């Protein structure tokens, strides 16, 4: 059904937000005017406050009487808006028209009265009267953009974009331009599917009203894929406008490409407005764990505003994005003027992790030594684990072991020590110490599963396979796990399945599929069989073999009806069969 959207897709939320702003402005100007023209008004506002209390208590009828009493006091505008609310609740909006007529006769140029009149007539379905009221307003205030703004906005809310468009065209002729109506022009263009024109108007509107950034992004978000480039061109066009670029960045994220969002922001000049845009972007990227974008944005901020907090965030983002060298340079230990205790608490752990990742554990050790007196035993043990992994990465297991031992009992009985034991094939120690691991990483879960299921006390082959994994040798680890499976039948299905996952992670489905198949066919009763079959089906689907994928999914559902994976398999099956969108 398309037409029920008509009342919604003109960006009613956006309009509401804008409406609040406009009404607030109108209220301010009206109150000033009313104070200046208060001769016929009484200054008593008690009735208004009584009305507010009654409205708050849900006594609309009584509130209506009080609001009416307050209509010709200094709170006239607020009372009228209150009356509009309570009459709507009582479904007697038509009763508002008579007092409105009196108010408009007394103050024909007051825009709030006119706006309420148009709204009331619209909600009563009296569209010809609404149109007539608009025409009268235009006659009474011929050079005022307000009637055009209000009426076109209401038409847009009703989904009547074409009529709104014609009203705005009239405004262009009568007022000599639509400079004050860019928001409405932009909305009407978007509602008509004229995306490029809408973007152009939004850009103009954003010059004086940068707070409309979210409204612009909301309005342009439905633009079809093939029509987005002209929108981009409008927002990229010179002169550079930060609000326009921010809008585009939001749009790009909505359209599913945060990378393009960063493209929209990266060449902004380093000033406070740009820094705020970069910080907002970085915050979203951090929350979504898009570390490369977070690093880029925070690095840009540092060029304008270099604070220890931002430097630390940039370094963490760099480290998490796989750029340990960048982490070291973005947050140097000597920069920022921080005292040593603070450096030890904040920057040092990042530097140690970065050095370990770079294969420079000796440098990391020297650094830790230089900050020794500011480190608590717990912090020291944490750093020792990072250093130990640095030694593992360069293949020196002995130094890794020593790094933990010298750091004290905390480090030596940690999960890091458990990992070292596993790499050395000491399954008894690994079983005991890995359980103390605080993180819930997939690697730890895999290791715990493996060492728990192997019946023996040692396996150098298993240790070597995990060591290859730790050294980021994915292909080597996959091969080692498969070889190891021959010697460890208790855990063979887990190891082969894991090897399949490693191959799939390398986008090598051709090698992953036989491994999944082996688990399903040779180890059909194992815990890994259903999950291997699901991954098998997904790999087949990725390769475009839907028929075989269906076979696997059906086999899984029927063979393992009690498996927790059955709902996922059913959903995959629906998708492969195109039974759901």
């Amino acid at each position, binding site marked *: 059904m398309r037409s029920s*959207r008509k009342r919604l897709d003109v960006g009613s939320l956006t309009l509401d937000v804008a409406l609040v702003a406009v009404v607030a402005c109108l209220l301010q100007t009206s109150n000033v005017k009313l104070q200046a023209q208060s001769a016929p008004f009484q200054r008593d506002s008690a009735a208004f406050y009584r009305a507010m209390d009654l409205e708050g208590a849900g006594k609309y009828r009584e509130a209506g009487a009080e609001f009416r009493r307050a209509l010709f006091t200094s709170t006239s505008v607020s009372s009228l808006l209150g009356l509009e609310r309570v009459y709507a609740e009582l479904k007697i909006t038509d009763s508002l028209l008579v007092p409105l007529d009196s108010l408009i006769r007394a103050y024909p140029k007051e825009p709030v009265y006119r706006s309420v009149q148009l709204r009331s007539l619209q909600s009563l379905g009296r569209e010809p009267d609404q149109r007539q009221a608009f025409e009268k307003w235009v006659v009474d205030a011929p050079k005022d953009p307000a009637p055009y703004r209000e009426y076109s906005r209401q038409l847009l809310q009703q989904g009547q974009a074409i009529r709104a468009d014609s009203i705005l065209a009239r405004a262009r002729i009568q007022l000599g331009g639509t400079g004050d109506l860019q928001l409405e022009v932009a909305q009407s263009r978007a509602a008509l599917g004229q995306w490029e024109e809408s973007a152009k108007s939004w850009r103009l509107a954003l010059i004086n009203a940068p707070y409309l950034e979210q409204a612009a992004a909301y309005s342009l978000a439905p633009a079809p894929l093939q029509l987005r480039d002209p929108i981009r061109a409008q927002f990229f066009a010179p002169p550079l406008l930060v609000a326009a670029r921010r809008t585009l960045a939001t749009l790009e994220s909505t359209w599913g490409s945060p990378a393009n969002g960063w493209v929209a922001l990266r060449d902004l000049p380093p000033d406070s407005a740009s820094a705020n845009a970069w910080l907002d972007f970085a915050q979203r990227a951090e929350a979504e764990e898009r570390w490369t974008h977070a690093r880029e944005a925070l690095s840009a901020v540092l060029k304008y505003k270099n604070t220890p907090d931002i430097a630390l965030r940039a370094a963490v983002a760099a480290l998490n994005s796989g750029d340990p060298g960048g982490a070291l340079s973005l947050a140097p230990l000597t920069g920022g003027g921080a005292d040593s205790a603070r450096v030890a608490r904040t920057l040092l752990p990042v530097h140690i992790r970065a050095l370990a990742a770079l294969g420079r554990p000796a440098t990391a050790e020297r650094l830790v030594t230089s900050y020794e007196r500011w480190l608590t035993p717990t912090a020291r043990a944490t750093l020792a684990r990072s250093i130990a992994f640095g030694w593992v990465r360069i293949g020196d297991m002995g130094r890794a072991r020593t790094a933990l031992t010298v750091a004290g009992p905390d480090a030596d009985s940690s999960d890091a020590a458990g990992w070292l034991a596993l790499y050395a094939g000491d399954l008894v120690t690994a079983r005991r110490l890995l359980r103390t691991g605080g993180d819930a990483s997939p690697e730890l879960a895999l290791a715990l599963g493996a060492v728990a299921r192997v019946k023996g006390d040692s396996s150098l082959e298993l240790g070597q396979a995990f060591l290859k994994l730790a050294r980021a040798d994915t292909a080597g680890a996959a091969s080692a796990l498969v070889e190891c499976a021959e010697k460890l039948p208790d855990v063979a299905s887990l190891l082969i399945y894991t090897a399949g996952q490693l191959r799939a992670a390398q986008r090598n489905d051709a090698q992953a599929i036989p491994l999944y198949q082996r688990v399903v066919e040779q180890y059909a009763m194992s815990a890994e069989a259903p999950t291997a079959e699901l991954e098998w089906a997904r790999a087949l689907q990725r390769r475009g073999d839907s028929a075989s994928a269906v076979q696997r999914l059906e086999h899984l559902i029927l063979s393992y009806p009690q498996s927790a994976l059955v709902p996922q398999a059913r959903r995959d099956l629906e998708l492969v069969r195109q039974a759901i969108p």
Partner: protein
Amino acid sequence: LVLGLAASSARAQQLLVPMDDQQQNHLKAYGLTFAALKAGMKAEWLLNYRGGSFLLPDTPELRRRAGLDGITMEPVGVGEVNSIRAEIANSNMDAIPLEKAPRVAVYTPPDAPPWDDAVTLALKYAGIEYTPIYDDEVEKGDLSKYDWLHLHHEDFTGQLNKFHLGYRDASWFVDLVQKNASTARRLGFTNIPALKKSVAEKIRLFVERGGFLFAMCGATETLELAMAGNSVDLAGAFADGSPMDENADAKMDWKRSLAFQNAHLEQSPFVNSMSDIDGHQVNVPGRRQPLGAFTLFNFSAKFDPVNAMLVQNHRSVIPDFFGVTTSFTKALLKPGDSILAFEEGAPWVKYVHGDYGKGTWTYYGGHDPEDPQHAIGNPPTDLSLHKGSPGYRLILNNVLFPAAKKKPLKT
């Protein structure tokens, strides 16, 4: 209780597919029953028994499909079946034999995705085969090949749901106008309203000759208007170049329509409404009525099995949902119409049914039972997240109802 295939390897005599809250996937259960009929098996619809359950033969194929689709079923032996039949005999229940899978057609534009319409969504999800047909096929006389016809949310007055009011220059709307105008020209009509009236007339004849018609949303109201206004200019100038006949109301021939009479047309081309048939008027802000909930009428299964079939459900009160036409003004129904669902105290009804000639029609207001405020651009409904949707069940009741063997009324 036995769930799925694995729980019982021994074959029972029959499979009971419960449709109460025990059922894990109500919508797929209709597909299972349809598949059984399609394969030449006999089935029974146990009206009012555990939410309108199905009794199917116990075959490996059906067990397999139930297992794959996550449909709850209970193998039952002769003794249990006898016990069920005894309960049915002594209550407001009945067992209706289902004999033959109906040939299903859906009147829908060739390029419309199935997610654009609640019925095609439901059929796709349940795994019920259907043939999409559109103006060319209808004009060619293909309707006679089908038992059951569903109407996509078409505007049979030819005004394209008055989308021009808000979308005159939107590319999808321009495309829609061009396609329809081109079809009209190709089939020898001067404009889109003339083409759609002709299609509406063929649909009327389809029902008159014994077809089962099911329509939702705006297709209900506009089909009625197009039938009654077959010789009246109903369309605004934007659609056919001439304004609506000023005396259109007086010229409507309500003897030709299926469900409504004495409706008043919306004369203004600027008001997004077709007539006063729709009780909710969702696209006319000053007239729009809020959504409530509708109640299914509880019919006698033994004396009124057709209506009882159409309201089989595990819920009797269902949240309402908007559509171009959301509901039907009660005062405009013809005297013989059956009200299947209504909103307590409201001047409109939600779901109506009736006979016409040798056939029947059923109208269900609203667009998507699981997306009450559906709007253009909204993501399509994923029925795997609404497996027990009571609103969608009403649609699928209609698909199976033509499979029922006609029984003489006991009155």
